[in-house]
């Protein structure tokens, strides 16, 4: 490697999204004491501005693909896709937070700064080309999320969620780090492409590599909340503030899947025969446990938490396919999932009321008669979760199972699709209470949608239809970037 340590202009451009997000986050921290009392809503607007700027920067960086900062970071289509995705999730999460923070009388400056930092961490994760960089990005993202999960300090549930998330999250990171250490011990490098090369040379102890891969599966399994490492997810998603749950179920998960794919499809591709059965079981367990546990939930957030476990299972099916098709299916599905999940959480934020008192599924009763538009939009997301055609969820699932069948995973595909039929049951319950029950107390007294929440509902709905009806552009981009430097 050339010993040129002075970063070039291109290096900075490739790193620009992270720079923007970090600077904006820091600026919000500074501005917070000055304007917190007078202009509490300003911070959200600034954050959205920063997100948009970062998104533009991410697209601009894609014009100069390549490795930067001594090969620590890499900008390729894969990185750009996930950067745009997590930044987009950041925007939607911010939009859905306005009303919530106002209602809970919470401080806005720190909240939005943490959100920016978290997204910055995820941007680093998805564009990292080095195990240490992955770890740093993961920690930036996670620590911000830990704080966000307990953002409402006086709320017992918030505290429980933050503590649980923190303890289990650190535990998982330990596994991941241990795996990384073993890899460094075997190969003498932490760069992903060099690890790949080193593992391809004869004489490497494949047993130890398998141990490292196994440890990483455990660590990443926690992060993506796949069964049997899903225990934390329901409690954390239920306890955390609703907009934070929406964020946590999507952005960190998308980033974790991105590094999952990047590590396993580059470093460990050669030994994929030995980890494929693990992922196979992992996927099946996640789908089955997630879906069957969701059947009995009465709390909306908890139900969506289990649904997120099941959805992680579908994505793992695509990972088990171990192909470029599988990688692009993962990319597509994560986008579709993010849209429908945030949309669904936006409705929860809307109906839950101050202190999140109304979180039961029955609290949606008769929503279609009182607020037909809100009900219709939630219907779009629910149909997407179920996988009804013309929604992003359907096309994503179709693409995942196509990848699985392409790699001859017939039984996994059959079991997965049957699982999605089971899942239809609990998603349908939302439609049942919204459309087929008489309006209850909660919906009777519901305020109209605020502009921020309206945007957080309409934008994902448009996106869901776009991914379902005209998926071409996203699909092509995903497919063209699924090579991962091989």
């Amino acid at each position, binding site marked *: 490697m050339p010993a040129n340590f002075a970063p070039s202009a291109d290096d900075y451009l490739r790193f620009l999204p992270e720079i923007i997000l970090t600077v904006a986050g820091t600026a919000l921290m500074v501005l917070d004491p000055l304007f917190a009392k007078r202009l509490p809503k300003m911070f959200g607007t600034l954050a959205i501005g920063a997100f948009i700027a970062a998104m533009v920067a991410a697209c601009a960086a894609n014009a100069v693909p390549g490795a930067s900062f001594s090969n620590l970071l890499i900008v390729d289509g894969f990185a750009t896709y996930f950067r745009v995705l997590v930044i987009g999730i950041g925007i939607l999460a911010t939009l859905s937070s306005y009303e919530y923070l106002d209602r809970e009388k919470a401080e806005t400056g720190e909240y939005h700064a943490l959100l920016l930092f978290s997204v910055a961490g995820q941007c680093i994760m998805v564009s990292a080309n080095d195990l240490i960089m992955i770890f740093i990005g993961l920690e930036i993202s996670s620590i911000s999320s830990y704080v966000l999960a307990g953002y409402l300090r006086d709320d017992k549930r918030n505290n429980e969620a933050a503590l649980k998330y923190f303890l289990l999250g650190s535990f998982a990171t330990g596994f991941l780090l241990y795996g990384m250490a073993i890899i460094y011990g075997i190969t003498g490098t932490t760069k992903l492409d060099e690890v790949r090369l080193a593992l391809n040379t004869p004489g490497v102890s494949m047993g130890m590599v398998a141990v490292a891969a196994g440890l990483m599966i455990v660590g990443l399994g926690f992060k993506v909340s796949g069964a049997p490492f899903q225990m934390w997810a329901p409690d954390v998603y239920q306890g955390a503030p609703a907009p934070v749950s929406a964020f946590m179920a999507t952005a960190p998960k998308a980033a974790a899947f991105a590094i999952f794919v990047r590590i396993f499809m580059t470093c460990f591709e050669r030994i994929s025969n030995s980890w494929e059965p693990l992922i196979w079981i992992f996927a099946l367990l996640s789908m089955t446990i997630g879906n069957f546990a969701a059947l009995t939930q009465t709390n909306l957030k908890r139900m969506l938490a289990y649904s997120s476990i099941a959805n992680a299972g579908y994505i793992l099916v695509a990972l088990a396919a171990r192909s470029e098709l599988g990688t692009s299916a993962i990319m597509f599905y994560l986008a579709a999932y993010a849209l429908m999940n945030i949309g669904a959480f936006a409705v929860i934020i809307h109906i839950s009321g101050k202190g999140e008192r109304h979180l039961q599924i029955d609290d949606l009763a008769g929503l279609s008669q009182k607020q037909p538009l809100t009900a219709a939009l939630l219907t779009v997301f629910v149909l997407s979760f179920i996988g009804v055609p013309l929604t992003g969820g359907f096309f994503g699932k179709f693409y995942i199972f196509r990848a699985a069948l392409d790699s001859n995973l017939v039984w996994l595909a059959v079991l997965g699709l049957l699982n999605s039929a089971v899942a239809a049951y609990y998603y349908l319950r939302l439609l049942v209470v919204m459309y087929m029950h008489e309006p209850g107390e909660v919906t009777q007294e519901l305020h109209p949608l605020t502009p921020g929440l309206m945007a957080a509902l309409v934008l994902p709905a448009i996106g869901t239809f776009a991914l379902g009806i*005209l998926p071409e552009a996203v699909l092509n981009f995903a497919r063209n970037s699924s090579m991962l430097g091989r």
Partner: protein
Amino acid sequence: MNILDLLLAIPAIGFFVGLIMPRAQEQAIRLLTLVFSLIAFIVSLGLAIGFQTGQTTQQFVTNVVWIQNPEIHYHVGIDGLSLWLIILTTFLTPIAILISWKSIQKQAKEFFAFLLLLEFGLIGVFAAWDLFLFFVFWEIVLVPMYFLIGIWGHDRRIYAAVKFFLYTMAGSALMLVAIIFLYTQSGTFDYATILDQLASGRIALSHIQETLLFLAFFIAFAIKVPLFPLHTWLPDAHVEAPTAGSLMLASVMLKMGTYGLVRFCLPLFPTAARENAPWIIVLAIIGIVYGALVAMVQPNMKKLVAYSSVSHLGFVVLGIFSFTQMGLDGAVYQMLNHGISTGALFILVGFMYERRHSLAIADYGGVATVAPWLSTIFLITTLASIGLPTLNNFVGEFLVLQGVAQANFTWTVFAALGVILSACYMLWLYQRVFFGAVGEGVEHHVLDLNLREWVSIVPLIVMMVWMGIYTQTFLAHVSETNAQILNQSKMNVPLRVAIPPVGGGHLNAR
């Protein structure tokens, strides 16, 4: 853009226009959806007029790329099989709107919009020529029907709607796997191309693969038909659905299953279809007899008609898996017949419900005295349903039985039991409801037909007679396509299932 595209566009546009109409304008929405459905019907007649006989390929084709990679086409077209099913759909939709005119007051806007969405999906199912597109329409149909049952149904509507949705979802999950598997083998979703590749041996399926694929498609369709023992969703859905929902469900949606069997199961997997025919036929015959027996003991009129559907649809499956030209013709004809006559039965039961607010047979009696016209119409429909010659069902049942007799005479004997039993339960129903002493509730509440009801029921009666007397209008097109499908189902088949030669040792109709 040809007539078929236009026909697909009209209900879709009507759906969206209906959705953006202001909620208060209920009457305008009713009129608007009626107008849209009538235009769709008129346009669909254009299909029949422009349809050319003697062509083996599909007509009114539009084939444009929808998604480049994976290559998915918007490929629609019709042949003799789909032509009349599409027209059945467009014919019944305005009637469904008319019969709901007064009875649907709650959330009328969504109701009528959903009927148009349903029409869109159904036309699409019968017209799609790309497996992916077919699946898309197949699933779209679920959504409006789920809401129709769930929002506007009777007491146990939620249970029925969810059951209906989940049954169909489970079946279609398997079908989706099969469709994707075919795609990974052939590299295309285009039905004609896949068929071609299979026939020419360019994709070779192993025996076990073919059987599993056949079963995946078959189960999805059999749930929809519904074939015994997968029928349990049907009585619930029918009884709980509003009249228009029952009408569309029985008359058209059940045909999605049988259509799928004829269109996809036979030509795609000829060997597996023939190998599995014996047990499928046994199930069909059990369905015929079981459905009829259960119908006989129902205290609820709608449930009775629902079980009679199970019985009638058994005939259709029987005809399909007889692998004879007559059996197949009869099966397809029976699909149309059942759509008309059972549809009419559901409408009439709906009329009675609107008057008396009860579906229990015990609450009626002596209706013939107070509502002679209603009784007359009901009688004609009853006779059609039990297969009286010169009315439509006779033709279908006769052809099916004759076709089956060619294949295996024993089957015919058992299946014919269904014909007898159908006379028992329908005539007994008629006797209990229309004759006898006039009850208190009947005398004051059951009025005769009004103009709107006349307008909605007479077209069905006309069709019963037309289809019973002049079958050539319909059967010619159907028969042509069936001959082709039968031919496809013979390709590359080593004929492992021995079909007794015509007239060989058995008594035969010819």
